């Protein structure tokens, strides 16, 4: 099911004019605060009435329905659990007000690991627990679309790590389109199927996450410093010295222990600044991962840096090197090089189970 959004709204100090189509999977609305992300998501939920709106889900118009008839599961940054109800009552709220039997209560509660919290009140829960209950409450309201407005922003790193796998599971298993607002590139890289970049009320770029993240020309609007492409790989073996061997289209790579079963597909975010380029296959080098690649494109930055887009037998990688090295190596599209990635440079949080496209 695709979600199509066309909005125009004038605020006293800025104008929103957005036209985007979110395909199946998780679409990230990415942009700095004030770019209009939350306005878009609230308009989809029906919480605000824009001047002009045309919102359809799988061809069905949503824009003339009041919020309570749109069947969106909205997960807010602050969980917004009802303080006067127990966790169980919060979870059952959607079914109660719609007078429908609840579907899949045990399964969802088990999935989120909140069985033990059912009789408790929201005030006694930790931030991570509250957010898990909020996710469960949204899912149990029988939604046809999930909206998430920075659901992790109020949580510390440990709590984020607690929630992220649940969101990944929703993306891969629920079959519901998800609209996800974020200003954190690492979150976007980890979760997004599609990325839509908003800049002061307008759509600056939209495309599949793999393409956009490895495109040196979108790197700037995404926030140049954190540029990094996503590689998909399969777990080959857990080796005795603590490394995990993975296979990519361009050959094997080794990473510090990745917790996933052999055979599992993972997506790895490799920061452009962690990639070194060499014209010859290097010998006597401590770095383990040396992958043959072809230069696809170069983009010179405003500073001394250059972003190089590489083709790794069909996958894309980004490398950030200095302009001086680029001209010393004579880099140009079509040039054969070796990309070198230091194993330990890949952060644990940047390797996750799952694939990029919803089809798998």
């Amino acid at each position, binding site marked *: 099911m695709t979600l199509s959004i066309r909005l125009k709204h004038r605020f006293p100090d800025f104008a929103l004019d957005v036209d985007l189509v979110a395909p199946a999977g998780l679409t990230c609305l990415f942009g700095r605060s004030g770019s209009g992300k939350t306005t878009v998501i609230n308009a989809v*939920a029906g919480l605000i009435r824009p001047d002009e709106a045309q919102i359809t889900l799988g061809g069905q118009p949503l824009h003339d329905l009041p919020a*309570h008839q749109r069947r969106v599961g909205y997960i807010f940054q602050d969980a*917004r659990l009802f*303080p006067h109800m127990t966790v169980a009552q919060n979870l059952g709220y959607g079914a109660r007000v719609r007078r429908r039997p609840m579907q899949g209560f045990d399964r969802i509660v088990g999935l989120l690991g909140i069985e033990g919290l059912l009789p408790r009140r929201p005030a006694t829960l930790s931030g991570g627990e509250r957010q898990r209950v909020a996710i469960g409450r*949204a899912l149990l*309201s029988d939604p046809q679309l999930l909206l998430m407005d920075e659901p992790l922003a109020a949580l510390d790193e440990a709590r984020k790590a607690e929630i992220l796998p649940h969101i990944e599971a929703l993306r891969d298993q629920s079959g519901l389109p998800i609209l996800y607002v974020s200003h954190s590139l690492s979150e976007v890289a980890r979760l997004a199927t599609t990325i839509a970049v908003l800049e002061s009320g307008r759509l600056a770029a939209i495309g599949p996450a793999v393409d956009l993240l490895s495109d040196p020309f979108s790197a700037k609007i995404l926030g140049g410093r954190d540029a990094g492409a996503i590689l998909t790989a399969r777990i080959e073996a857990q080796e005795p010295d603590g490394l995990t061997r993975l296979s990519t289209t361009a050959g094997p790579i080794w990473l510090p222990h990745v917790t996933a079963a052999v055979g599992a597909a993972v997506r790895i975010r490799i920061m452009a600044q962690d990639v070194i380029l060499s014209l010859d296959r290097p010998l006597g080098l401590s770095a383990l991962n040396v992958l043959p690649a072809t230069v696809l494109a170069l983009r010179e930055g405003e500073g001394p840096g250059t972003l190089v887009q590489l083709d790794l037998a069909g996958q894309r990688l980004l490398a950030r090197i200095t302009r001086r090295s680029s001209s010393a190596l004579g880099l140009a599209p079509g040039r054969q090089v070796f990309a070198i990635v230091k194993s330990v440079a890949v952060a644990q949080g940047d390797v996750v189970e799952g694939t990029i496209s919803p089809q798998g």
Partner: protein
Amino acid sequence: MIDWLSPEEWQAVALSLRVSLWATALSLPLGVLAAVALARWSFPGKTLLNGLVHLPLILPPVVTGYLLLLTFGRMGPVGGFLYDWFGITLAFRWTGAALAAAVMAFPLMVRAIRLSVEAVDPRLEQAAATLGASRPVVFATVTLPLILPGIIAGAVLAFAKAMGEFGATITFVSNIPGETQTIPSAIYAFLQVPGGDASAFRLVVISVVLAMGALILSEALSRRAARRVAGT
């Protein structure tokens, strides 16, 4: 207790309780509505409504009573209508005493409820809407339970104020034993006759006890409701 009070005193106590209970019960829905309207809605004439609600708080009670008499008296525009069409008379009846008490207590009730409405996070109501609740359902399942402590506090405050109302009551419905003579009017009447001090004093004691009782009850109830709302 009945032996302890003279029939006349007992009558005043019973009447006061009846007047105050009716005044509180009938004005409560209106008080909730006014509080929600003032706290949440924007509409033309909001300032005027705010002024009208609070007027009895700042006007001399005798002026409020006189205005009630002009409006709700048999000859008044509203009073005449009520009498002609429904045969209802308010002036110089206990029902009129209830009206006077309700009007005088209304600002206090609305203020207490309004504060609690303003404390409700509208984002919770938005969350309820996204979960499928229409506006009346949101009000019944989220807003109302959250403002319950405020409603209780407002009701008890209004009840206590109604028990003590004197100026507007005596101007609007006079001081008729058995019909409109509430505790304060009775105390006033006893103080006007020689040897009435003892009766007046017994009524004063009852007044104090009832007021304290109401206050303690409201504290306990609203603390319990607040605990439920805060979720601890």
